[in-house]
């Protein structure tokens, strides 16, 4: 691919002044040959330069994207230990049967699902509401948009560390506020649902504003006459939202659902740093251990890279299923509208 890059490049370097137009007083014979050479070069350029332009991306993708992904599948069929990563022994599907027999795998899968739902659903609903409000005629709309994006600029590490303190059992701000309205201290670390909610809240906080902007962009692309004709038909604001805005946003909603689902399935930094003991088990009872954390625990703490690869490929297959479901739903929606 790099050689193609080279064949495409010369005209740029050599033909400094408009190579297509030879000087008028050139000797005809030389001129003809030069033209032929130039036109060959021109054709080569037209033919190969598109590939030269896209090849750096695809080379990087092959080396650091596709190859590792396929190699993960290969490694998942072997016994590989962290201590000797090149020493692979064929294991067939044993890694898969081992993790499917492990209660902690199913626990992590369930936690990933519940944390995914608790974080994605409120996040997208709130984002939709905020986007709707931002779509009104507003004073200082840019100000609100930028403020909404401040959590997006905050790293997972910084956000998780401050949420640990805010969700502290004894001295945290949130329990203090709950006490003020008569609710007893909640153990946000050790209680299963409370801890999952706390971890989800980090995700919700970081991504709601971002998703609101995406919805807002899509809302602004809806043609105004759709609203006008709805208003002529006597639709009030709520009916306009239901019958005009939501249907027009379908592709965008689907897009954000897919992106959030992928993000939720990969959750790692938040539960790792939310654990007060900074362990990889996702709390003392594995109450908020996600699949990402379980993968890390198997690979880097227990040093079973083969088993960790099997977890990664299981997650990949789950994503493919999600992708297929998404594809089917979007086709149905397109067919029905």
């Amino acid at each position, binding site marked *: 691919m790099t050689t193609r890059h080279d064949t495409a490049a010369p005209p740029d370097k050599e033909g400094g002044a408009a190579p297509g137009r030879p000087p008028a007083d050139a000797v005809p014979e030389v001129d003809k040959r030069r033209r032929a050479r130039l036109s060959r070069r021109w054709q080569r350029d037209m033919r190969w330069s598109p590939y030269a332009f896209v090849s750096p991306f695809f080379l990087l993708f092959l080396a650091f994207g596709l190859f590792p992904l396929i190699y*993960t599948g290969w490694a998942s069929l072997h016994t590989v230990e962290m201590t000797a990563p090149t020493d692979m022994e064929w294991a067939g599907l044993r890694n898969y049967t081992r993790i499917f027999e492990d209660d902690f795998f199913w626990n992590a899968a369930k936690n990933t699902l519940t944390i995914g739902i608790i974080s994605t659903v409120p996040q997208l609903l709130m984002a939709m509401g905020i986007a709707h409000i931002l779509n009104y005629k507003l004073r200082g709309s840019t100000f609100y948009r930028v403020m909404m994006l401040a959590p997006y600029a905050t790293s997972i590490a910084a956000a998780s560390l401050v949420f640990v303190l805010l969700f502290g059992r004894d001295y945290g701000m949130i329990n203090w506020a709950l006490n003020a309205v008569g609710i007893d201290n909640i153990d946000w670390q050790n209680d299963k649902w409370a801890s999952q909610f706390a971890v989800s809240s980090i995700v919700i906080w970081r991504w709601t504003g971002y998703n609101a902007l995406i919805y807002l*962009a899509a809302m602004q692309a809806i043609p105004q006459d759709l609203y006008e004709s709805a208003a002529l038909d006597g639709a009030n604001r709520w009916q306009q939202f239901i019958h005009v805005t939501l249907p027009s946003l379908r592709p965008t909603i689907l897009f954000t659902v897919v992106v959030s689902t992928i993000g939720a399935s990969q959750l790692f930094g938040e539960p790792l740093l939310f654990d007060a003991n900074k362990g990889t088990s996702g709390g003392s009872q594995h109450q908020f251990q996600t699949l990402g954390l379980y993968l890390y625990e198997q690979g880097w703490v227990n040093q079973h890279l083969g088993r960790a690869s099997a977890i990664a490929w299981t997650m990949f297959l789950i994503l493919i299923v999600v992708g297929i479901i998404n594809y089917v739903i979007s086709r149905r929606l397109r067919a029905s509208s």
Partner: protein
Amino acid sequence: MTTTLTPQDTTDEKPKRIRRPRSARAGGQMHAGPIAYIILALFTIGSLFPLVWTAIAASRDTQRLAQTPPPFWFGSNLFDNLEIAWNDANLGEAFINTTFVAGVSAATIVFLSTIAGFAFAKLRFKGRGAMMLIVIGTMMVPPQLSVIPLYMMVAELGWTDQLKAVIFPSLVSAFGVFFMRQYLIQALPDEIIEAARVDGASSWRVVWHVVFPAARPAMAVLGMLMFVQTWNDFLWPFLVLTQTGSPTVQVAVAGLGRGFTPDQSLIMAGALLGTLPLLLVFAIFGKQIVGGIMQGAVKG
């Protein structure tokens, strides 16, 4: 649904508001009522509160954070804590490392995405559709799934604890290619390319003299988005850079939380230091970043 937004639409909000009523906009005829402003204010407070409280906690000492009620206003320890956190976590080196990693990564992604995005948007070649499908498919596969072989590769190459171990895998950005393609489809008229071709410009000259100038606003936005993303990246740097070596800011800040009795105010000081540079970037370029995200969002 192809995008109808031009950069001016999303970035220059204010002049537009003054110049004409937003009759062309969905819902634009409706003025926001007081309830809308209250909800927005609450939401803004919710967005900012954890950040402000990070600064409050960083300005106290760790004993004060173990009392009820929690502090609501700044104490006097801010600069002491910032200094100790800076030294303990070796943040000076971490800042240099992270700026280098994020800068190189963002610049490379922008350059490669622009030429690839241009090819996908404006050039005809065999396999274009299939290749674009691969790009879109890549966007949907999270890089985290590939960490195990990447880790083995890095170990094999002897790159552990070196910054290139973080930089190279971060260069694969299908989003960047997609983003630039979407922008160039509408921002770069075919006639300009034709004109340059008639003048005998080679493809590389077209890229250099026509595509780059036309793509500059989108390149700036993509650069900022990629810088933020690389700056905040956690899992991969956490795996390949040990805290004793040359960590990035995120790894160094996360490392503050370890230790037997962690000093909470120091952790908050570290978190604050790790976040401040990006908040600064957002304070200056917030408008452009908002515009960029909204532009990248409307996809066909």
